[in-house]
């Protein structure tokens, strides 16, 4: 039984998983990645996923297990160096990898979640990152127009949640999670604890519950 209307089991995620879907995943080298949800996605057997996040962890940690198990068709990320399998599949032509600057990735996701059509950033000007992008010059400075990213689902890792889905993250596990909460059609957070609504000081909420569609208590089957 759910303790709250938003709490679901890992298994309840299954009907929402399908081949070819796009998934925003929180985390930085696995810290802040919902390992249980990743495991559920792996067990579900879905494939041809597009995964979007800072990095691809390692073959054993974070989102990396989906890459290692060949469930991924495309990666949008800033760094894949810690997961040799990502690089190997990329070079073998089995995996499409789109690399971009980390700050640009963050802004693109934020734009996708906030109705903005893009941002103008100086990052990447004069590098291969500018290939194929609209460039604008204001006051003598070149900027790249970087466009929004959204996904079908966002999978987040929180430290604590309340019944309404308000989220609090812990230390460096926050990273991409709060902006991803804005940018997907379905947002699910794996959380270490669920407390009664009202127990989180409203000033300390890091992701408002209205952005979160479902909560899974970490480790609870």
């Amino acid at each position, binding site marked *: 039984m759910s303790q709250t209307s938003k709490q679901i089991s890992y298994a309840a995620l299954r009907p929402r998983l399908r081949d070819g879907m796009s998934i925003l995943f929180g985390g930085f*080298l696995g810290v802040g990645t919902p390992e249980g949800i990743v495991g559920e996605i792996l067990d579900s057997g879905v494939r041809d996923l597009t995964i979007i996040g800072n990095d691809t962890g390692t073959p054993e940690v974070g989102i990396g297990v989906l890459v290692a198990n060949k469930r991924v068709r495309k990666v949008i*990320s800033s*760094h894949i160096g810690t997961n040799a399998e990502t690089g190997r599949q990329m070079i073998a032509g089995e995996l499409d990898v789109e690399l971009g600057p*980390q700050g640009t990735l*963050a802004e693109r996701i934020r734009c996708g979640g906030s109705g903005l059509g893009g941002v103008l950033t100086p*990052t990447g*000007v*004069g590098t*291969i990152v500018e290939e194929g992008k609209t460039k604008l010059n204001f006051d003598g400075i070149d900027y790249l127009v970087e466009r929004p990213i959204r996904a079908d689902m966002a999978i987040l890792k929180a430290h604590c949640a309340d019944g309404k889905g308000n989220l609090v993250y812990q230390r*460096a596990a926050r990273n991409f999670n709060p902006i991803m909460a804005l940018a997907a059609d379905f947002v699910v957070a794996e959380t270490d604890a669920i407390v009664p609504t009202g127990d989180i000081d409203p000033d300390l909420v890091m992701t408002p519950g209205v952005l979160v569609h479902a909560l899974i208590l970490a480790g609870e089957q």
Partner: protein
Amino acid sequence: MDAKNLIAFRVAQEMKDGDVVNLGIGLPTLVPDYLPEDVHITLQSENGFLGLGPLNGKTLPNLVNAGGKPCGMVPGTAFFDSAMSFCIIRGGHVDVTVLGGLQVDQEGNLANWMVPGKMVPGMGGAMDLVTGAKNVIVAMEHATKEGGAKILKRCTLPLTAAKKVSAIITELGVFRFIDGKLVLTEIAPGVTLDEIRAKTEAEFVVSPECCEMETPREAQPV
């Protein structure tokens, strides 16, 4: 003292009390060990905090540096999300970023993120750091393992950012970009200008005030 530590020592002397600093992985992480006693800096970690400290034995959950390794934090640390982390980086709120380099050229271009045909790890936060930090210090050994030049007329590898490097610090000396020109300002003890010229492809000016590069006491030639 090896080249890496010599370089880290010299980089540390660039820091001013109160500086906000982001250190790349590898050599740059040695810099805090060599800070002058009266210089206190705040370390920014692009995975989302200001206040990175040494591990000091005790690991805390979800407290890792941008290399994913357990780390410590100082009193007054602040955590934030990745968007804010790069608002701080891109917005010029980081005083100094210290990174390694594969190539730097006399235009101030840096290449340090990929070698075509090899495994591409990705740029991570490096492009934003080099674009946004007030001072970009490239800390690297002067030549490749094979003895080839890394300070070039023009980078041949894909750039990390164009015309953003402030200084290059190697075990042989210190270069600064002054009015768009590459200027040699310090030479390490026991190193000759000819040796630097031989190992540097870039055209550079020798500063009229060019002096001996500061090194740790124990490493000074007697």
